[in-house]
Structures are given as C-alpha cells and as structure tokens.
C-alpha cells in the first residue's frame, strides 16, 4: 500500500488519511481520550475541507491498517466490487456527498452501489454531513432481510424484545416476554443477554423462547446472546438455535480481544443455515457493534472511533446478517459524553451501515454516568425512525436490570410507530391482529380479556 502526499488546507496539514479522518470527525470524548481529535474547531473544519477534495479512489490504495497485518483490511480490499464502484469512482468525497443528496441516488442506485463502497469512504462522507443529511440519505437505503418474518421494509419498524433477567430466572424472563408481546414488540428478535455464558444456560433459555413461539405460533426468531463458540457448541447438541449472535469490531486485534476469528463466524453461519429453521428467509446472524469498542480493547490502531466502527460493518456484511445493532450509548461518557454525541453517533452508525448494505438497527441507550436522559433518547429514537432504522430495542420500562443501563422501552416503540405511521414486520403484524393486540387502525391496543391474551398468560404462568 502506497501513501500519497500529505493533505492540507490553508495552514493546516494532515500527514495521512487516518489522521485526516480523525481530525475531520465531529467532536467526541473517545477521540479526545485516544489523542486523535482535532485540537480546535478550526482544525476540524479545515480537515473537512481537505477531506472533501480526496478522491474516493484514494481509499482503495491507502489502507488504515496494513493489509498484511489485519484481516478486516484484507476483507475490505479483497471483497471490493470494482464494477459496483464504477458510477462514483471519479468522485471526491465532497462530490460523493453532493451526489448522495441528489435525486439520482435512488434506492435502487444505492443498493447496487453498496458492494463498491468501503467503510472508510462511507465514514469519510459522513464526516461532511449534517444530521439531516445522514437521515435523508439513510432513508433512501432499504436493506431487507428475513427469517420467520421480513425486517427492514420501508414504512416498517421492528423491535428486539430484550427480556433480560439478572439470574436468567425462567419465570422472570417469561414475564418480560409476555409484557413485550402484549405491547407489539418482538418482531426483530426475542433476544436474551444471558447472565451466564454457558452451553447449559443457553440451551435452557432457547427452549423457553422456542416453547412459547411454537405454542402460540409467533412468526419471529429467537436468540440467546452468548459467545459464538457457545452457539456452535449448542448447535452441535441440536439446540433450537435461530440466530447466532456475536459482538464484532473493526480491527482484527479488537475481534481477537472478543475471542473471535473470521473462521468462527463462517462456521457459525454455515451451521445455523444448515438447521433451515427460517421460513421466509435464511439470514441467521445477529451482530452488535458500538463506537468505542475498539479503543476500549486498546485495538483501534490509531483510527478514530467512528471510522473503525464503520469497518465493523464490513465484517457484518460478509455473513449476511438478519440484524446489526449499534449499541450506541452503552459504553459510557469517556467515548460518547452526552446526548449530543450519542445522537450524532447513532445517526452516523445507522447511515454508514445502511450505505454499506447492512440491516442496521440501533440500541438507543445511555448509562447513568453519561450526560443524557430520556429526552435525549426520545430525540434520537424519533430521528432514527424518520431515517428508516430497521429496528430498535424494547426493554420493560427502558430499564435493563441485568446489564444496568437504560435503553428504549416497549412503550417507546409504540410511540414511534404511532407518530410516524410505521408498522411491525408484515408477518408479525398479522399475528398481532390475530391475537387482538393490534386494532383495526394498526395501533397497539391489546384486548386483555380476549382468548388470545389468556393463552399468553397461561404460558407465562407455566414457565
């Protein structure tokens, strides 16, 4: 990989692409912590001027981590589709932003373009965009996936039902699942973060969800968010695995810190696909990411946190996931300090994922030591709904009592669907109508004394 001339604007110079991208990034605490942020607002905007003049082709010849050292870089270069890239190959980053906002950048054009883009190109253009640009372009990117229902169709919003319990107590988990279903949540996945990462715990929880799903014929998928190696283990024991989960990041070193290799992800995808449990599709992977993950593992390789996050989506894309979830505020204020930084990061991640062709959802969330509250979450949730986010998270009352952070609630998802006229996944919506949970107008108004509700309650009592 050759390195070209340094970049400059007025009195500012930037020695390489990695530095230029970092300095152009909107201010966030994680880049300050890493010593990568621009030292002044003027330097930041100067970096954006310089970045706007960089040809997109430059990203194909200057890797941020050497090809020889990093399997994510190798994936980015080796899987790049030059034919798909052709329509934008003569553009600079600034031209690219202009083009994305034009009517020429149709949903179809963007879908064909996705394999021709690298995460660095996408991260670069995001740094030149205002929030409204990120929303406007993401809204044109439709990434549709399927397993037992169809996620990501325009005009639809799915919800991951997250019924976590600090001790994986079956009755406690079942009570939260029931609560979520009665609020119309669960079409993205019913996904539990287990308190214990063991094959036995995973199998027990999988059986719990599978039983209710089969008993009342819910067209959705389940996931227990254990390590990929645990999932491979339990699949070999014939456990009812729908989706395989894994946290991923944008460098090989960071992925190694998660205890994963590309070979493991490929093996898991093959094994889960081989189970043929999907009915309307066979996207079997569920990935989670989040800005700051690489830095917190001391594996960011000098790349700013937004760019290295986008590189994780290349990893995700390789394994045709049903869902990719950026857990945007979980990591804490040393990476995203306040509501403003969390909001920006959520919109960036959603935009970058969608432009790369990844089925992006977002865990809109915060911790108690961040400068954020539910008003900030309402804002980001609403913006992501407008941007066409595939799914959000539903936790009872927004309070995850296992992971000790605040996400969005079942109520929040109902609000978002109502104010924006968004529907659950079509197969799931039909089921909700049958269960008298959705009314004639598509609102979530469960008939709590109906027979369907009684069946749910009976299951929950038995769990």
């Amino acid at each position: 990989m050759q390195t070209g001339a340094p970049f400059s604007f007025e009195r500012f110079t930037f020695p390489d692409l990695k530095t230029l991208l970092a300095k152009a990034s909107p201010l966030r605490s994680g880049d300050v912590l890493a010593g990568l942020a621009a030292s002044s607002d003027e330097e930041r905007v100067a970096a954006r001027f310089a970045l706007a003049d960089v040809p997109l082709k430059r990203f194909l010849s200057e890797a941020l981590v050497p090809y020889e050292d990093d399997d994510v870089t190798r994936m980015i270069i080796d899987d790049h589709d030059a034919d798909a890239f052709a329509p934008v190959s003569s553009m600079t980053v600034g031209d690219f932003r202009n083009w994305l906002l034009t009517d020429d950048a149709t949903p179809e054009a963007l879908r064909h373009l996705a394999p021709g883009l690298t995460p660095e190109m996408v991260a670069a253009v995001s740094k030149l965009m205002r929030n409204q640009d990120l929303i406007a372009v993401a809204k044109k990117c439709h990434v549709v996936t399927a397993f037992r229902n169809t996620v990501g169709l325009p005009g639809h919003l799915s919800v991951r039902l997250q019924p976590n319990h600090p001790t994986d107590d079956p009755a406690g988990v079942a009570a939260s699942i029931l609560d979520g279903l009665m609020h119309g949540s669960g079409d993205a996945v019913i996904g539990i973060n287990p308190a214990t990462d063991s094959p036995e715990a995973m199998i027990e929880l999988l059986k719990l969800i599978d039983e209710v799903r089969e008993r009342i014929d819910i067209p959705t998928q389940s996931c227990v968010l254990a390590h990929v190696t645990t999932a491979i283990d339990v699949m070999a024991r014939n456990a009812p695995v729908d989706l395989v989960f894994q946290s991923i990041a944008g460098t090989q070193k960071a992925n190694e810190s998660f205890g994963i290799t590309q070979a493991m992800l490929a093996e898991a995808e093959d094994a889960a696909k081989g189970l043929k449990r999907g009915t309307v599709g066979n996207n079997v992977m569920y990935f989670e990411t989040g800005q700051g993950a690489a830095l917190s593992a001391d594996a960011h390789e000098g790349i700013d946190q937004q760019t290295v996050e986008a590189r994780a989506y290349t990893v995700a894309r390789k394994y045709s996931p049903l869902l990719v979830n950026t857990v945007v505020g979980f990591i804490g204020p040393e990476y995203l300090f306040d509501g403003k930084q969390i909001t920006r990061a959520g919109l960036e991640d959603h935009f970058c994922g969608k432009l790369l062709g990844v089925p992006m959802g977002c865990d809109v969330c915060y911790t108690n030591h961040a400068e954020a509250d539910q008003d900030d979450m309402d804002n980001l949730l609403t913006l992501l709904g407008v941007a066409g986010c595939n799914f959000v998270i539903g936790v009872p009352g927004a309070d995850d009592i296992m992971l000790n952070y605040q996400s969005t609630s079942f109520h929040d998802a109902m609000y978002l669907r109502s104010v924006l006229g968004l529907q659950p996944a079509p197969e799931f919506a039909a089921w909700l109508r049958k269960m008298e949970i959705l009314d004639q107008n598509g609102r979530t108004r469960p008939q709590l004394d109906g027979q369907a509700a009684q069946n749910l309650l009976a299951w929950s009592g038995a769990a």
Partner: protein
Amino acid sequence: MSNLTNKKIPSGLDPWNTLRAHTDARIGLGRVGDGLPTERLLEFQMAHARARDSVHMAFDASAVRDQLDGLDHTILDVHSAAPDRPTYLQRPDLGRLLDEDSAAALGKHTGDYDVAFILADGLSARASHDHAANTLKLILDHLGQSWSVAPITLATQSRVGLGDEIGAALGAKLTVMLIGERPGLSSADSLGCYLTWGPKRGRSNADRNCVSNIRPAGLTPEKAAKKIAYLMVESRKMGLSGVALKDNSSNPDLIEG
C-alpha cells in the same frame, strides 16, 4: 390471576401487574395511549435522578474518616490526577494516576505491609459514604493479628486502577479497594471490592478479584466482608489474585476465621 382479567380495567392500569412478582423488570406498567401513566413516568425519573446524584455527589472523605473513628490506623487522603468530576468522567486514565501531592504524601509512609485498604468514590460517592467504612470494619473483624495493615487511604476522583499506584507507593503486597460502582437505575448505592496482589501500574482486570453489588438490598456488607476476608487469606497463601484465585467461600468447609 385470570380473575383479574374479568374485571373492568381502570384507565392506564394493567390487570397483569401481578406478573411483577416474578421479576424486578418494569413490566405491567400500564398505558395511556402509547405512553406511560404519570406515576410510572415519575418513578423512572426519580430512580434516574438518584443514580445521577450518586455519580455527581462530591466525595466527603472527612465524613468517611469520622465513620472510621476508633480504628487504630493512620488514615490518609489522596486524590487522583483528575481534578474534577467532568474530567474524571471523560478521562479514566487520569483517574488511575495519583496527583503529585498525593504521591509525595504516600512516599512518606512507604513500608512493608501485607495489605493496603483503599476507600474510594468511584462512580458512586454515595455507595462509599453509605457502606465503605462499615464493610472495612467488618473485614478487619474477620482478619487475624497476622496481617500488617498499611495506612488506610481515602481516594477522591478514583478509578479502580488508582489502587495499583497507592499499593505500590505504600509497599503493600495486596490492595483491597472498596469503591462505588456505576449506579444502576435501582441500585444507586452499590459498592464494589477489588483485590489485587502485587499492585503496580499496568495491572489489568484479569489480575484482580471483584466482589460486586455490596449493599443492604444486594450482597450485604456482612456477607461481603466474609467473602473478601476469605479471598484475602487465599490470595496471601497463593501469592496471587485474579482468574487463578477462585472464590470458594460459599463452601462452608473452606471458611476459616
């Protein structure tokens, strides 16, 4: 429970709220349209307010010192290199380093000790105010006379890693740090305990043992002290801490005085 569903449902109430007996999760909250009933909304805000206040509350080291009155130990105040709370929250690296004055002060007390106890604010000064002194006294009650104890430090704007600096400066073989944990929405006063054998700069979490969720509604200070004392004895015996040191304290055969 089924009889509940036959009753007329008052607006905003959820007839299934009895399911709440199965979990502390906020289920069965009821609805007003798509939103939360007012009382539920305010309950959440109160829980968040308490958690945030715990994070931002100033550490009152002198109050903790008063709670330790009667102990026959020197007590020292130390401060990390993070000068204030906003810096502390954004620069965890500074919270792991001593400021210059503290490093100099500790240097005057360097010795050869078995253990250094550190009471620290961490992410919840409230946890430290409410439970640290009590837990320390209970731990000391479990220890025999064979332990030489370094001056007790009260650490402000402290991360867990600051204990490595303090332990190294004092010349302690083992540090036991009682520090406020990141508050959850319903656990604003949760204290954590970290044991580190051979404290020195650069230790990682894999080198430590952690006893978490110390609070009256979680792991009680009494039970925690017993567990911590057990781990201290084992750590000294094995000359290590971290993943190789297993907590078998719940096995009654293994508990010694």
